């Protein structure tokens, strides 16, 4: 169960209550909590140490604000520090003065290089009107060339590949090919390699030397743990990359590796990859990443996630219904279904700031919405569309049919009506926000929890 940093810190900062200033003594436990949160999020051991030392220095001597709660005050200090670490400037990838622009992609095995290469090609083609060619310089992994060809076909981008197991040659020839075809961008996908593999590290350094890329990107899996610093450092020493790409952020990892890497190599994170589909690529946002690492809940990604799952048309229809007050139980049932498709309810609730605090003593039972569904399922279509006709006889029947008590049916109806009202008042929040707020309102009040 999610428990956000600020609520953890609320416990830890008890010692601050009644103190005027933050000092070495009263801050110790708080710092320990922060450190643990960072380690739980996979921030490297040394990096976490350095980071918490910074926090300590920054907080020391500050007044304990009585206006806000000390947990929040600390969370803000930690959050600000982290956002600052990540750097505010958004850095684009380089463009060559004389085309083609050459982009070299490197990283460990399985980090997501090939998929990213194809995504980048699509992105540059669609957003920047470029004409890219992909170079298949992974000459080792079985079917790697087929994989990149299949992806390239789906986005109508050419691939250059050779039969021989010579990655340097494949890369070099791809650049020549781009020149002769007047293509303005070459994206070189290389084989995954271990940073301790001398021969393979030499190879990628040789490729870099041979093609003199304008941009070299290091691709790293966001689920990486403590070892992220070793690999990021080693690759940086060998190929001095310009930027980092974080992949698989559509998972539920906290992604502390991002902070570790940023700290030890001081290179910007340029892209994040968020899915297997080729359009799942986005710029890096330091604030969102900091929130994610700290488990602070991320409304932005919640809304984005929701937007993906929700059909736009459906959503507009729903919006109208809410406005005109004709949102009925059938709509509600469909909403529940969609929310369930988006992932686990605890994860979703965890993304709403404050929600996990409100719910922290209550384990979220993934099945807790089942009785609600059962009740609605036991209604006739007419009853769902027009809940006002639910008299005592009908409610008794529904309770029996759904294996619940009449009181449960009554509670659900009461909550449903309150939720409808709430949804109307949350009109600025986007659909899913309304939905989640509505459901949150229901949680805890229903007898099923």
């Amino acid at each position, binding site marked *: 169960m999610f428990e956000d940093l600020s609520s953890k810190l609320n416990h830890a900062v008890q010692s601050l209550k009644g103190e005027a200033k933050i000092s070495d003594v009263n801050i110790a436990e708080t710092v320990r909590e922060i450190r643990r949160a960072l380690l739980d999020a996979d921030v490297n051991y040394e990096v976490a140490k350095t980071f918490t030392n910074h926090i300590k220095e920054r907080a020391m001597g500050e007044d304990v604000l009585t206006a806000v709660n000390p947990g929040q005050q600390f969370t803000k200090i930690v959050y600000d520090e982290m956002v600052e670490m990540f750097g505010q400037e958004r850095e684009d990838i380089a463009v060559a003065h004389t085309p083609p622009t050459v982009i070299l992609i490197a990283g460990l095995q399985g980090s997501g290089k090939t998929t990213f290469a194809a995504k980048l090609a699509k992105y540059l083609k669609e957003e920047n009107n470029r004409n890219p060619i992909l170079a298949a310089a992974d000459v080792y992994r*079985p079917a790697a060339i087929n994989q990149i060809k299949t992806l390239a076909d789906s986005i109508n981008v050419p691939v250059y590949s050779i039969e021989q197991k010579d990655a340097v040659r494949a890369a070099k020839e791809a650049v020549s090919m781009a020149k002769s075809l007047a293509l303005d961008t070459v994206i070189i996908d290389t084989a995954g390699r271990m940073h301790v593999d001398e021969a393979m590290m030499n190879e990628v350094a040789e490729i870099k030397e041979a093609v003199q890329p304008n941009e070299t990107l290091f691709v790293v*899996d966001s689920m*990486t743990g*403590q*070892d992220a610093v070793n690999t990021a450092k080693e690759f940086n020493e060998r190929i001095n990359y310009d930027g980092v790409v974080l992949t698989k952020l559509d*998972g*539920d*990892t906290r992604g502390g590796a991002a902070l570790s890497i940023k700290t030890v190599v001081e290179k910007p994170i340029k892209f994040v990859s968020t899915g297997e589909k080729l359009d799942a690529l986005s710029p890096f946002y330091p604030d969102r990443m900091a929130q994610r690492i700290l488990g602070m809940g991320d409304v932005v990604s919640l809304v984005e996630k929701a937007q993906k799952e929700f059909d736009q048309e459906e959503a507009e229809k729903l919006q109208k219904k809410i406005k005109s007050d004709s949102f009925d139980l059938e709509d509600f049932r469909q909403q529940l279904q969609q929310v369930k498709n988006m992932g686990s309810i605890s994860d979703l609730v965890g993304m709403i700031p404050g929600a996990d605090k409100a719910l922290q003593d209550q384990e979220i039972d993934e099945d807790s919405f089942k009785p609600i569904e059962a009740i609605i399922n036991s209604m006739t279509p007419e009853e769902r569309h027009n809940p006002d006709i639910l008299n005592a006889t009908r409610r008794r029947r529904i309770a029996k049919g759904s294996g619940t008590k009449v009181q449960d049916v009554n509670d659900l109806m009461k909550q449903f009506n309150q939720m409808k009202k709430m949804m109307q008042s949350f009109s600025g929040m986007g659909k899913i926000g309304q939905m989640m707020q509505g459901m949150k309102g229901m949680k805890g009040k229903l007898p099923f929890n």
Partner: protein
Amino acid sequence: MGFLEKIGLKKKEKVEKGVEKSRSGIMGKIGKAIAGKDTVDAEVLDELEEILITSDVGVQTTIEIINRIEDRVAQDKYLNSSELQRILREEIIALLKETKSDKPADFKAQFPTKPHIVLIVGVNGVGKTTTIGKLAYLYKAAGKKVMLGAADTFRAAAVDQLKIWSERADVPIIQQGQDADPAAVAFDTVSAAKSRGADIALIDTAGRLHNKKSLMDELAKIKRVMGKVVDDAPHEVILVLDASTGQNAMQQAKAFTSFVDITGLVLTKLDGTAKGGIVIGVSNELEVPVKYIGVGEEIEDLQVFDRELYVNSLFSDD
């Protein structure tokens, strides 16, 4: 020289190779502890914490290990650093579950039923397909009749990739090409394994993130249809974990087990500097053994997991 011996030789070299740099001298430091103690001093605990955390063991499991050691030491006392080390190793090994005889890790061992069906699962890029290629090779070399099933019909060229491994290992593969229904491929594979008298069938699946419900439901369905052909199939569901993965591996393990009941683990990519310490917590929490480790990209780069060797490599001195 037989391949098992070869592995035996490679074993030490490969598993301990990456550990050398970072760990040297740490046990030496722990060795500073003085004889006859019934508590572990703070300095030792700090060292221990650092070793375990930087190996991705995780805060919670680290605390558990430290508590166990403090309990043991309070009871048994220790005389010197080697005794403390022994206690430490024993306690960590105890968290790693043992393999069971109906799911043997030894390639020569008899399976309780024929065909023995194994489903391989995990998130994207951890090394599922490669592990299947290696397992096929090792089982075949041990005299088993092996069959592969290409139920990753989603990722580009995944079927081609497994096909190449089936050629390398020289074992048959059942496939329906890209975009086919993975459950149908799984069904076919199990049927073919049964009708052609295979000893073992290994079924590859598409990598999927554990928080995507529809993909996890699909996996549950793949598993379900297998049982319609052979009773109790699959007999094993193996989760592949990448040694470089941090604390998220625990979430992965919990989610996969809630959909398809994991029975064993494979820890891949131990040929780098990552230690994969999260398997200690995962093995303990899910009560499943680590069966194999992956130590490279070649077909023979797979070893039966050895708890002692693994724990030693966490603390290796040289």
